[in-house]
């Protein structure tokens, strides 16, 4: 899903954000999730069994919808033509950097503060004796 959204960003002429999206999500956030799941070494939750029982009929909806989506994507890919008109490139790294370091300099610096605080918060929360 995240890769698809990055592809859509490329289609919308936001190349910088597409690259950033892949790096941040695939490279950082999802690795973090997987690492935490691995670290916790979860036991099987007995309450999950009931839920799968309750949601069993959902696959009768999900499988036709998935096949429909597959056909839809296939038909779209087969029918795709050349782009009508390549308008001006809006989302290059140059344009984004130009705007971010002039008009949005203060929010940009504040994000570094936010990340620092989040880093310290994560370290404190994950400590042994909270």
């Amino acid at each position, binding site marked *: 899903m995240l890769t698809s959204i990055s592809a859509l960003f490329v289609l919308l002429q936001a190349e910088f954000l597409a690259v950033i999206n892949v790096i941040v999500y695939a490279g950082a956030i999802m690795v973090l*999730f997987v690492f935490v799941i691995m670290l916790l070494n979860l036991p099987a939750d007995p309450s999950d069994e009931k839920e799968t029982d309750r949601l069993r009929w959902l696959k009768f909806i999900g499988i036709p919808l998935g096949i429909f989506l597959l056909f839809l994507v296939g038909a779209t890919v087969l029918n795709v033509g050349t782009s009508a008109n390549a308008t001006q490139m809006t989302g290059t790294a140059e344009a984004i950097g130009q705007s971010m370091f002039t008009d949005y300099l203060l929010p940009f610096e504040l994000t570094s503060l*936010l990340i620092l605080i989040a880093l310290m918060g994560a370290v404190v929360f994950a400590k042994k004796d909270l």
Partner: protein
Amino acid sequence: MIPLNWYLILGAVLFLVGVLGFFLKRNIIALLLSVEIMLNAVNLTFVAFSSQHGQIRGQIFVFFVLVVAAAEAAVGLALVIAMFRNRESLNVDRSNLLKW
């Protein structure tokens, strides 16, 4: 070019998936992933409008949303670790005390 409508519809559907996952799931990691899906839906809408209007501001905002999402994931997963250590479970129904 794909019309703007389709991007907005996809964004709405993704947001709906995130909201439904947030309300139906009981595993806290699934809740965090649902929040990420919602943030991505909003990002997609932002970039679609930014491209439609030919302005860069929407993409700048998406950058900030990405930063907040990364910070939120880091703190949220640290909280998951702390919660699992204290409760031995990831089910949010079982963490029903503010203090113990």
